């Protein structure tokens, strides 16, 4: 590849500047489209800069903790986040994130790239699809009552109550999301949305904010495993985390006054290309 020869002998300074700029863009677009920074920074590091995917995963997970904790800080004060649902599902996500982080090094990097590409395709599809709110205030099962998961949240028209459905299904889906998060070093927000919106039938605002709330501790569980393995290299983690967090912060400010529908479609096409490239490189053994 031509790209390889350009970047093969890069100085630390140049590398830092390029990664900072790329991570800023990843954070910005990630927060505008709701896709998250991790799924963008990993293809950038591996496909463009030729960084080993294990380093990219380590750096990405650190940026996931930064952005999710940063936005959770704002949401949790508004009282929309359901802390009980979050903590209950963290049982599933922390265990599975640790498992994913342990397993990832035993899997051929090519396969990881292929799994990553598939998750990327899925996330792109989830980004452009029309969202349907399935939430209601109907009576729920024994588990939802036992774990006191049903809740309410403030809206412009007063407090709205909601019931939590299919707790077991949601828990299992969250376990899968945690495995993927630990395996690939991403927040796996797209899978968490499936668990919370479609299976447990939470209102959008509650599911997005609660998913954000959980992401930090889930990512922390796998980040510790990555750190011990040496996958978190300060030279990559520093520009990635600073860049993604700054980009995401600017993005969240812009989000209030921007219509992101067109951006999402354009970006879905870009992400589809990245995903196919990851899958191709994975299958042909280039990663």
């Amino acid at each position: 590849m031509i790209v390889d020869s350009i970047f093969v002998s890069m100085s630390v300074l140049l590398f830092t500047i390029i990664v900072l700029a790329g991570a800023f863009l990843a954070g910005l677009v990630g927060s505008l489209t709701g896709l998250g920074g991790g799924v963008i920074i990993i293809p950038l590091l591996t496909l463009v800069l030729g960084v080993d995917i294990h380093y990219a995963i380590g750096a990405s997970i650190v940026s996931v903790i930064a952005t999710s904790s940063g936005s959770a800080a704002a949401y949790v004060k508004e009282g929309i986040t359901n802390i009980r649902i979050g903590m209950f599902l963290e049982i599933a996500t922390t265990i599975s994130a640790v498992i994913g982080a342990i397993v990832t090094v035993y899997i051929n990097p090519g396969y990881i790239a292929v799994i990553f590409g598939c998750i990327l395709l899925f996330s792109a599809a989830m980004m452009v699809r029309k969202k349907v709110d399935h939430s209601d205030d109907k009576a729920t099962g024994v588990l939802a009552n036992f774990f006191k998961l049903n809740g309410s949240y403030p809206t412009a028209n007063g407090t709205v109550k909601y019931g939590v459905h299919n707790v077991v299904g949601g828990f299992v889906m969250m376990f899968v999301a945690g495995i993927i998060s630990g395996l690939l070093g991403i927040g796996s927000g797209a899978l968490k949305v499936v668990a919370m919106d479609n299976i447990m039938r939470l209102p959008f605002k509650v599911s997005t904010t609660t998913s954000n709330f959980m992401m930090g501790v889930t990512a922390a569980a796998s980040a510790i495993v990555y750190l011990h393995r040496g996958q978190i290299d300060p030279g990559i983690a520093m520009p990635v985390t600073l860049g993604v967090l700054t980009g995401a912060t600017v993005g969240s400010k812009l989000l209030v006054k921007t219509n992101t529908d067109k951006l999402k479609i354009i970006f879905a096409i870009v992400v589809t290309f990245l995903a196919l490239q990851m899958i191709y490189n994975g299958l042909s053994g280039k990663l």
Partner: protein
Amino acid sequence: MKQKGKHYFADKDIQVILGTLLRVGVIASMIVVFIGGIIYLSGYSHEIIDYRVFNPSKTVYSSILAIFQGLSVLDGKAIIQFGTLLLIFTPVTRVVFSVFGFLIERDYLYVLIGLFVLGVILISLSNKLVG
């Protein structure tokens, strides 16, 4: 659903504390990473990067002990890793505070759930998990 007003206010207080904690944690760790980054660049900026193949033995600061040893000589890389550690422990501290919050509310089921999550984190701190 919260029937008692008292519980609602207790929840509200916890939410404000958790929100502040997360914000302070993220900002503090990013400042540390930034300072570490400056020191790192001032020392290593002309070196050639080598991230093509993952080599665990090349990462010097891959344990909490090693990071603190590096901190004592103000090594840029160690300072960055220390900032990363602060960041990792921000959501973990959030769980600790939630446990106290639920303890005050006498919601012992969620005290147990919180302790369980902390237990998983503690297990992940064990070096033996890494192959």
